[in-house]
């Protein structure tokens, strides 16, 4: 029994990592109907920004997190406004996909030039603290990052529901024409949405960098994980991203322990396939997708 509980706890904490990495992707996909292939680059970029803050400037990654989020917002919003929007205007919506893919390639190579491809990880003084609850062993860093992720996702959910900008974003996602007729600057909304999604991506990178070793080449992995989690939990829903991530994490650890670790990816993709067949808009779905 203790093995089962430990496995579930590990799965929830691992799933928290996946959720944090996916929530920004979910927002962009839900509002703009764009699969952001550069999402992983913002995650890895956040990790490297935290590495610079910690190793060069001596700033704890958690203290640097708000600044890194702000940098992610600025970079993401400006990229969307000055690169993606012109590309879509001149070409077609598929251009957005290609542009994000190209941006990801450029940034990965820049990161490799600046930081090399050596495996990095961020190890502040508390990186190896362990908590014990009876037979349960919990990695303190993962627990803290899970808690921070939960708070961030809850804050985003509240922001989307209660703030004026959140309502404007949801309105634009429901009907861009209707929003523009109401005086909404849809281009500005899209840029802001992409910025928020990128900010969350960068924030997740800070937390991931404290938990896992990373290299520039890993960005694709985090885009794929985000896609799976969002498809499972529901596009455009922060709570869906949390639920999808936790479900995936628990499925992964239970598979590892009781079926065999080599089947982990297979099981994750099988769950994704089943979800697409049974409930394609995800467990919690997107509130505004149904009205399109």
């Amino acid at each position, binding site marked *: 029994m203790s093995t089962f509980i430990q496995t579930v706890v*590990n799965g929830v904490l*691992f799933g928290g990592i996946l959720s944090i990495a996916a929530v920004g992707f979910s927002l962009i996909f839900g509002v703009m109907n764009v699969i952001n292939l550069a999402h992983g680059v913002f995650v890895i970029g956040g990790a490297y920004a935290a590495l610079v803050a910690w190793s060069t400037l001596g700033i704890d990654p958690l203290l640097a997190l708000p600044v890194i989020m702000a940098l992610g917002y600025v970079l993401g919003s400006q990229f969307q406004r000055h690169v993606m929007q012109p590309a879509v205007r001149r070409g077609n919506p598929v251009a957005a996909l290609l542009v994000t893919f190209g941006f990801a390639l450029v940034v990965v190579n820049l990161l490799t030039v600046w930081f090399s491809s050596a*495996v990095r990880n961020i190890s502040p003084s508390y990186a*190896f603290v362990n908590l014990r609850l009876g037979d349960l*062993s919990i990695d303190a860093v993962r627990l803290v990052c899970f808690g921070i992720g939960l708070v961030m996702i809850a804050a985003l959910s509240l922001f989307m529901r209660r703030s004026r900008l959140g309502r404007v974003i949801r309105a634009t996602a429901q009907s861009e024409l209707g929003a523009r007729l109401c005086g909404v600057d849809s281009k500005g909304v899209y840029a802001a949405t992409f910025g928020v999604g990128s900010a969350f991506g960068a924030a997740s990178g800070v937390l991931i960098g404290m938990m896992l070793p990373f*290299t520039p080449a890993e960005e694709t992995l985090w885009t794929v994980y985000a896609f799976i989690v969002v498809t499972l939990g529901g596009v455009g829903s922060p709570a869906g991203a949390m639920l999808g991530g936790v479900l995936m*994490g628990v499925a992964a650890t239970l598979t*590892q*322990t009781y079926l065999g*670790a080599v089947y982990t990816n297979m099981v994750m993709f099988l769950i994704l396939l089943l979800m697409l067949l049974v409930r394609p808009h995800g467990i919690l779905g997107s509130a505004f997708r149904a009205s399109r």
Partner: protein
Amino acid sequence: MSISITRRRSLELIGAAGAVAVAPRVGAQALPAITFGGTIPFSGRWAEIGQSVHAGYTTVAKYVNEVLGGLEVGGRRYRLDIKMVDDASDPQRGITLLQRQLDDGVSLFLGTYSTPMVLPQAAMTERARRPMVQAGGGGDAIFTQGYRYIFGMYPRASRSAFPAVDSMTVLNPRPQSFIVVYTNDPFSKPQGLGVMARLRERGFNVVDSFELPFQLQDISAVLTAVRDKKPDVVMCLTSDQNSLLIARQMAQNRADVKMLFTSLGPQTPSFRQGLGKFAEGISCISTWSPSFPYKDPIFGTTQKFAEYYQANNTVPLIYHQGTAAGCIVAYTSVLRAVGKIDDTEAIRDGLARIDIESLYGRIKFTPEGDGDPVLMGSAVTQVQGGDLKVIFPAALKEANPIWPMTAWSQR
């Protein structure tokens, strides 16, 4: 008799000294070239080690060209030209670039890094009947296809970690129980299966084993097994990044063992820095160390190679440079013996028969082309005081093993 130093005389002497200093460089540049082709990962997943391998190749070439004034083959002097192109750790890109070099007439090849990269390239150079000596791929699949032109500086994967198992037999008290962890890729899996077979041959008890996906993000199952079954030793046949993840999670979760062995990882400074004090006591295999006491036909000794390398490179010296350098030493030895640079059949036959001592150690290949498991087997090293020390075999030992290693919670 007094000698007056005029300005004219001074300028003549300075000019003569300068000419002497640059003569080998200028001379070597004017020599015809022996070109070694191939690809190397300068970017992507394998870039850190790929750059180390490349540095090993180019250091030997630089020494031969600049210090020795070229390589004498068949009465003529040649410079060594290393023409490696970036495969970005992508097997598809690697074979495209290699095909281009084959089409351009390159005759002699060096290897890229990692078995998934080397395997398809080996098939191409074999089909073209051009020799490849490589220090990057040890997967069994490379050496069980009946290839005649492919030579590897390591024993094949299923035998490569045998020294790690053998090093456990000299520990006192003798370890009893083992957990073996490997990833599902063409190198780690045969290595892991080979280790399990060897452990059982040596009378050890393998209480559990795990086959994990190649890209790891979580090892909860391994941690649970370590807590439940309390093995003496966990042996991880995993790549550098996966080894770091495993070591980090074991330390973070206080999954204590008496020894943690990872086949790759501790040899890189980034691994040891990432773990800090938690790296102490982790062991790994090392195919080469600068402390090896071997004589070399080019540098004289292993230490002289290490000194020359340190003076001419910024990439930290790890075992990959030594292994790569061994490839060039093997080629130069055979080229001198054969006396021709373009007779690929004779060069292949020379490589198949080679048996020399070098900075890398004894170079002698099996009939299948991989390194002889006894003569070219690895040493076992352990992180001690933040540095790597050879702990096995006895002939190369620098320090006694830390056994058992300090529990994570007591560091």
